[in-house]
């Protein structure tokens, strides 16, 4: 991956995650030098970017991260947290993070369109795309954002021929 393009994407991902976590969960997301490994038992979400260029982003987090976010967001105890809540949080956080990433990569006058997030266990997700993982620590809990290679090739160095 081109170093300049990767740095541009890194800044976009870090700013998007930081702003979203700060705004929604009133805490800080610190980037990790080495991203955690995505595992099949994690809570996850995937979201396609439809326009102007096709791409995909994913979010993965251990159940304890999702539970901590649910407690903060819903003001509930662990006993009141449901799997639906955890999946909805994964989908909505990815939706907001993806929007912020794409917005920062595109010129201001370029509209974009996101698909609907699909959330569930990460074991349900497989892909032929190659993803880059970006790790974060939220009060000691891990969160991973995965961006596919098309985000670098299309969004950091766009050309008209790539547009859908």
């Amino acid at each position, binding site marked *: 991956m081109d170093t300049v393009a990767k740095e541009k994407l890194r800044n976009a991902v870090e700013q998007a995650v930081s*702003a*979203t976590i700060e*705004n*929604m969960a009133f805490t800080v997301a610190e980037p990790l030098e080495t991203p955690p490994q995505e595992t099949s038992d994690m809570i996850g979400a995937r979201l396609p970017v439809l326009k102007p260029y096709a791409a995909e982003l994913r979010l993965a987090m251990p159940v304890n991260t999702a539970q901590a976010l649910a407690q903060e*967001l*819903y003001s509930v105890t662990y006993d009141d947290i449901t799997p*639906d*809540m955890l999946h*909805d*949080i994964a*989908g*909505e956080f990815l*939706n*907001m993070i*993806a*929007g*912020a990433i*794409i*917005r920062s990569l*595109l010129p*201001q*006058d*370029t*509209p*974009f*369109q*996101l*698909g*609907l997030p699909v959330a569930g266990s990460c074991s349900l997700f497989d892909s032929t795309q190659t993803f880059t993982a970006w790790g974060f620590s939220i009060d000691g809990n891990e969160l991973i954002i995965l961006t596919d290679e098309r985000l670098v090739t299309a969004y950091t160095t766009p050309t008209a021929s790539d547009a859908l």
Partner: protein
Amino acid sequence: MKRILIVDDSITARMFIKRCLEIAGCQDAHFMEAANGKDALALLKSEPADFVVADINMPVLDGIGLLRWIKSSPKLNMLPVVIISSASNPAQDQELLSLGAYAVLQKPISPPQLRAVIGGLIESPVEEE
């Protein structure tokens, strides 16, 4: 008491928008919720609202479709619609405003942002007891 309809397919987003509205001055409002534009239109047929806060990206009928329906309805076209979207940028905001959106905000929203936009809606003397 203001009657506010929140339209978003995410229950987390609806809960967060409601919380922001309460902090922004709508703590005494009556909140209604719908998970997509179609359900919102069905609700609006029987339940009057003072304004709508809607996401763009939803299944069945999205926020743009909902906005078009409301603005083309003789009964609903004066209803203010605030759009809150994660896929918002200046180009898209302008298109939504030209379709009749009252305002467009980027997700994640904050109470001060919301207050700045809806201040006129919650302070206007249109209450009917």
